[in-house]
């Protein structure tokens, strides 16, 4: 009798907690839907095929960065160098095509990813070696990578004419670009869910000391997370080059904060341990949509920025409210 009661109580508990998690992701989807519907009513030109295409192309790059950032944030770290790595990789891709015009596109993609992974390895290596918080280390490498970019470019600009047509058309073909994002998203999401090392990333962010005592190789896992984040920033750099065609040393400047915003809005806990890449990707889509919906609504640029800020605060407020509610539910039963 008592066990039956306990069983049904625990089932209720499980339903309640999973419902709260669903609410979190549904919340962003609802906000996104509302935004699109309202904007379309006010300005019917918003959802033209060109509009949708711009939206998806724009979100692709941010979403890929957000996936990489999520992998790092889950471990209670942050990668502020993502924008600089993207810039470096984009310029490297352009330079590669200038130096070897007939280069096959996949080779360029692999080169960008490897360059980004190398940058990520530098980040992760420094964090492990110097034992300094990743916030400080990646703030440093944000400037270092950008500096390398500047020195390399030395004021030069690479134009669309320097790159193969097939490469540029790939960057403006919505299905291809979206496919990149979806493959990255699903692969990362599945890895984090279904593999031991993926779960260990959550464990590290949830309680680093306990992770060490559990025998998890914390240093190695965090290093790997930064390599993944760097590699995805590298990939995003290649896609950036393909999409925009015109490259100088400023590509992707300031993008890291958009990425962190997307991750936070997407429900990834900034202190690690919880959140999903799917949420982060929807967060990226929402931020991109705001970026194009507000001008379409005729909102002034000042309010556009302020509204992104308000969204972040609202997301954090929602997280807090849900956490309090969940805590209350969890305390009440086993």
């Amino acid at each position: 009798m008592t066990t039956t009661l306990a069983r049904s109580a625990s089932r209720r508990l499980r339903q309640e907690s999973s419902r709260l998690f669903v609410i979190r992701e549904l919340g962003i989807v609802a906000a996104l839907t509302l935004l699109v519907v309202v904007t379309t009513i006010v300005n019917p030109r918003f959802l033209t095929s060109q509009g949708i295409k711009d939206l998806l192309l724009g979100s692709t790059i941010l979403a890929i960065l957000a996936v990489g950032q999520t992998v790092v944030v889950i471990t209670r770290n942050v990668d502020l160098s993502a924008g600089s790595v993207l810039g470096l990789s984009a310029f490297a891709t352009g330079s590669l095509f200038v130096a070897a015009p007939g280069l096959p596109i996949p080779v360029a993609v692999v080169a960008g990813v490897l360059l980004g992974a190398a940058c990520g390895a530098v980040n992760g290596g420094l964090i492990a070696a110097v034992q300094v918080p990743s916030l400080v280390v990646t703030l440093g490498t944000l400037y270092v990578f950008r500096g390398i970019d500047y020195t390399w470019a030395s004021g030069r600009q690479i134009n669309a004419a320097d790159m193969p047509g097939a490469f540029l058309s790939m960057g403006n073909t919505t299905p291809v670009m979206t496919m990149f994002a979806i493959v990255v998203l699903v692969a990362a999401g599945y890895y984090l869910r279904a593999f031991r090392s993926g779960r260990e990333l959550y464990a590290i962010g949830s309680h680093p000391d306990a992770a060490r005592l559990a025998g998890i190789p914390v240093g190695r896992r965090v290093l790997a997370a930064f390599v993944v984040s760097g590699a995805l920033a590298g990939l995003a750099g290649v896609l950036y080059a393909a999409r925009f065609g015109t490259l100088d040393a400023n590509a992707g400047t300031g993008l890291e904060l958009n990425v962190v915003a997307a991750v936070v809005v997407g429900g990834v806990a900034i202190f690690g341990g919880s959140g999903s890449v799917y949420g982060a990707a929807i967060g990226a889509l929402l931020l991109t949509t705001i970026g194009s919906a507000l001008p379409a609504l005729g909102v002034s640029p000042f309010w556009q920025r302020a509204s992104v800020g308000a969204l972040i605060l609202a997301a954090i407020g929602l997280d807090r409210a849900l956490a309090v509610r969940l805590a209350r539910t969890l305390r009440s039963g086993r």
Partner: protein
Amino acid sequence: MVVLELRDVSKAFDAVQALRAVRLGLRAGEAHGLVGENGAGKSTLVKILAGAHPADEGALLMDGRALRLAGPADARAAGIAVIYQEPTLFPDLSVAENIFMSRQPLRGLRRIDARAMRARTTELFDRLGVPMDPDRPARGLSIADQQLVEIAKALAFDARVLVMDEPTAALSGPEVERLFAVVRALCEAGSAVLFVSHRFEEIFALCERVSVMRDGRLVSTDPAAEVTVAELVRRMVGREVAEMYPKAEASKGPPLLQVRGLSRRGAFTGVSLTVHAGEIVALAGLVGAGRSEVARAVFGVDRHDEGEVLVDGRRLRNGDTAAAIAAGLALVPEDRRQQGLVMELSVARNATLARRWSLARLGLLTGGAERRAARTWGERLRVRSAGPDEAVSALSGGNQQKVVLAKWLSTEPRVLIVDEPTRGIDVGTKAEVHRLLSELAGRGVAVLMISSELPEVLGMADRVLVMHEGRLVADIPRALAGEETVMLAATGHGGAG
């Protein structure tokens, strides 16, 4: 047959020699007790077996072969499971994942088999006899439940050697019994168990042999049947502890603390109690009966929904700790790390935190007054620290507890509420805390003591109140209080006590 052997293991942290040439052999199928005062080196020994610290000198042997532990992963691989004093769970992950982290059952392509993991978790909990949902996150579990998850974790990989560092500190009687049944089953299956505890009854109930540590040395190992508690205590402290529970008779004064019909939804209902000046009243009950919650509500940390609290006949405002302190109430909380101390601050700062206003001149704290006040109380309580400027985090558990006591005693309280005042404290310090509580009662302070240790409750209290599932179910005077009456009431079989 000796499974795991330590040969002359030594370990130093900076200038402090934590272990000196320790020799210990753990036999298959046997539970081995380890006792010693706080700071004697028990936890260091546990950490070395866990692979969390490397030994400076000496060797570990498993089945007679040298065992090198470069990290916790090596210890696990060798079949050594460790349950720490403080649970080490991942709050965001599910209970099942906590149990199987890094060892999750796999299916094709090395993917985690979530269904098998859940099934095995349920199986483990059935074995432990607790209904816990494998899918719920570890966040929000009570300390006792967290400890049960730790135990399930150790069970999950059929440890050859199970090391437990005070696993019962937060468990209630039936939970301890269940744990012991599981440990005995493990022993029968051939595992070796090292059981570190401050509770002698448990050591004698579970262990075949018992070792004593003092100042980093292993001073003795005997069959449990051949030693007495008094003998063990003398070896631990190196001196005779005169009297464990020295409650002196004190004349009962007027009622100082009166609680009438206090209720807080979901925690406790209709609690009424009175504590007179010079009286020590114990609040007994199982973990989770709502004792700490009552204490928090009386002190105003939590708001209550119904009822009232009176100190010396004057009603306290609901949920106002400042008013409670002003009225002469003091609360020494259960979890000193989280609720009683600011770990990074110095001993002096912590000890004077509760009365910083009376020490301040023109609203500014001068270090001198703080240090003087801290020294006075430090001496009275015999706190062992390098000095008033040492950070509290550097002190041992027993000495931390003394600082918490100093903090509240320095406010000269008229009503003192102590929640588990001697949990995780060595015997010597325990006796000092008991002496102090008795002395305070003698000076006319009303003491309400929450304790899960029956000998302490029976030895110290003038009256024993028992709580069961949020209600006060018994009020037993000292003369009638015995282990049986209190336990029956606490488990809800007390009748009209």
